């Protein structure tokens, strides 16, 4: 709870407590915390002197603001027509199969969230997806499996290093 307050206050202060910075504040707190809990929203409402209902209304309007926690890695797959006609459907199915979850959900181990996104403007190399902040293009079902395997391997290595270093 204290962390929630600290992060939120820092962002609100950065924008000088201006109620018109609400969208910016929501997005930035979201980026720092991964999602906005009721506590985040209540604090933002309090600090910007706005009704909680309005803050919730704005937060739920924008798709890049999450109201629920997401996995460690977030996949945002482009679901728009230009990616669809160059083989997006097969990639979509490969993603669901590889992660064992349907779109919109997070794996039970909290590692992966599988979301769709609107066009990310990389249509020349469709189908495309973002894994966290990285864009992967010209996807095929095989390539998707390789990419996910790479991330898993990296995570394992990072965990192993952390264990060796006595950080866990």
């Amino acid at each position, binding site marked *: 709870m204290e962390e929630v307050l600290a992060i939120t206050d820092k962002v609100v202060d950065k924008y000088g407590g*201006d*109620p*018109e*910075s*609400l*969208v*910016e504040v*929501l*997005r930035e707190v979201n980026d720092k915390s991964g999602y906005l809990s009721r506590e985040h929203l209540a604090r933002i409402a309090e600090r910007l002197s706005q009704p909680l209902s309005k803050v919730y*209304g*704005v937060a739920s*309007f*924008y*798709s*890049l*603001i999450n109201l629920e926690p997401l996995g460690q890695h977030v996949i945002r797959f*482009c*679901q*728009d*027509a*230009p*990616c*669809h*006609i*160059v083989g997006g459907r*097969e990639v979509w*199915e490969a993603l669901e199969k590889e992660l064992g979850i349907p779109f919109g959900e997070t794996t039970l181990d909290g590692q992966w969230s599988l979301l769709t*996104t*609107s*066009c*990310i*403007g*990389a*249509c*020349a*190399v*469709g189908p495309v997806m973002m894994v966290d*902040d*990285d*864009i*992967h*293009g*010209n996807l095929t079902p095989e390539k998707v499996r390789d990419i996910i395997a790479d991330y898993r391997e990296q995570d394992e290595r990072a965990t192993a290093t952390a264990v060796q270093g006595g950080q866990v």
Partner: protein
Amino acid sequence: MARRAHIILSGTTAQVQKVKAAFLESLDEFGLTDEVDVLEAAEMTVSPRGVEAVVYPDVVHYVQLTPQDAPTIVEEHLYKGRPVGELIYEEQIVEPLEAPSTKEVRVVLRNVGKINPERIDDYIAEDGYAALGKVLTEMSPEDVIAEIKRSGLRGRGGAGFPTWLKWTFARQSSADEKYVICNGDEGDPGAFMNRRVLEGDPHAVIEGMAIAAYAIGASQGYFYVRAEYPIAIRMLRIALAQARDYGLLGESIFGTDFGFDLEVRMGAGAFVCGEETALMQSIEGKRGQPRTRPPYPATSGLWDKPTNINNVETYANVPQILLKGGEWFASMGTEKSKGTKTFAIAGKVARTGLIEVPLGITVREIVYDVGGGVLNDKAFKAVQTGGPMGGCIPEQYLDMSVDYETLAEVGSIMGSGGFVVMDEETCMVDIARFFIDFAQEESCGKCVPCRVGTRKMLETLNRICGGEGKPGDIETLETLGQYVTLGSLCGLGQGAPNPVLSTIEHFREEYEAHIYDKRCPAKVCRALIKYEIDPVTCIGCTRCARNCPVSCITGAPREVHVIDQDICIRCGICAQVCPVDAVSVE
């Protein structure tokens, strides 16, 4: 400082950063830091192969780079002058950026990929800010608007409203404060022109906005850029800081009493915020919902002050028009659609990417001459222009002129410049369904016809694609489409039915085949197709049976295999793995 070589890197951000760091380190080692520049670009080619680099001016294309390759390239190629053979990609020749396809004319994209967007000096060396200087010291605001009028420039965001007229309305509104806004909320699926301009030449847009501010009498401006474009936002922030350092933004620019500054505001993932009134609501910290017009932004916009709002590409044209004159710009294009337009070509076409062509070019020239034709020499079926509010243009219009009026005549729109090519394997009903799905998801919910109507249209299309279409469905879609168009406040709702209506108009027989014959002519809609194994061709290799995810294929080794249609999920894997092409789709 002039450089003798440039390395342009592309690939995914994290990997590019590592390779870039390695390049910088070895350039430093060889004392080449002042001679060679390392730039990051967006994706350059049709098929990115890991981290790629093109070294200019030699135009040597390296692929699959790791940080370990950087010292080799620096030592061998840049220090000793011998390109590193084993890293060069040879299948595909990267054209020098200075010589695009002969049908192209680069005005908006003239600097993109050529200059380092992170250095204002590079832009200034290409006549950057010369137009602003000329405007502030030699021209009155009225002169500026007159020059824009002579050029015939129309809004590049899609609607094509004459820019000079918009500026005139904002100029004539009296208020203590006015604003200029740049709409960089490029959300159309299939459109990425503005992203590349903001990433590759941000100062051109800044300069265009400063000129607009001078013309209408504003001193503050806003960039509204979607959060999905992090590189564009980073480049803009760097560019703004440098322009301020040089006194090109801020108080008394060029020693005149004109002052102007800009702020960047980010979107948060809402397509409708590209609509001008919704965009302004979003800047004000609210839900981005459109409101009625009038009043138009030119009289009552951001914080109820007169506001001029133009698209990225519109502003990027402005400095060139002021420098070279309105007549020069008007010499390109058609009678009513002047100048050039950028298009993002995607879909089933050999060369995808960004192009800039004079308006009045034909669809055929774009697809075949600039785009290199349909991918894998399949038959051309249609091109979808104008994004999710646009329409599909069928083959019989291949020779039509691409301009605002002609596109509208055939039921599409110019839109922001999406240009998605479809071939014989694209199902038009399925495509219409995708676009209406997009619209219903992005509808802000304010107008019932848009919120409920697009939903009902989607449900109908889902049924048709699912093999449960009924007689009368096409007529229902047409009627609903009209209601949604008529009953919605903003361009999203007014345009949402367009992809459906235009595909019904041009491809009605495909809808009918789905509904009456329970058949998908393009063999895309799974409920309407079935896979079969030709008993004569099948060699009984068992590969299909082993790869079938639902185990619906039976047959002993070296005997003919059979698909159980009741279990088959029509995934198509059997057809992909069959070594003798015995699996056909009906």
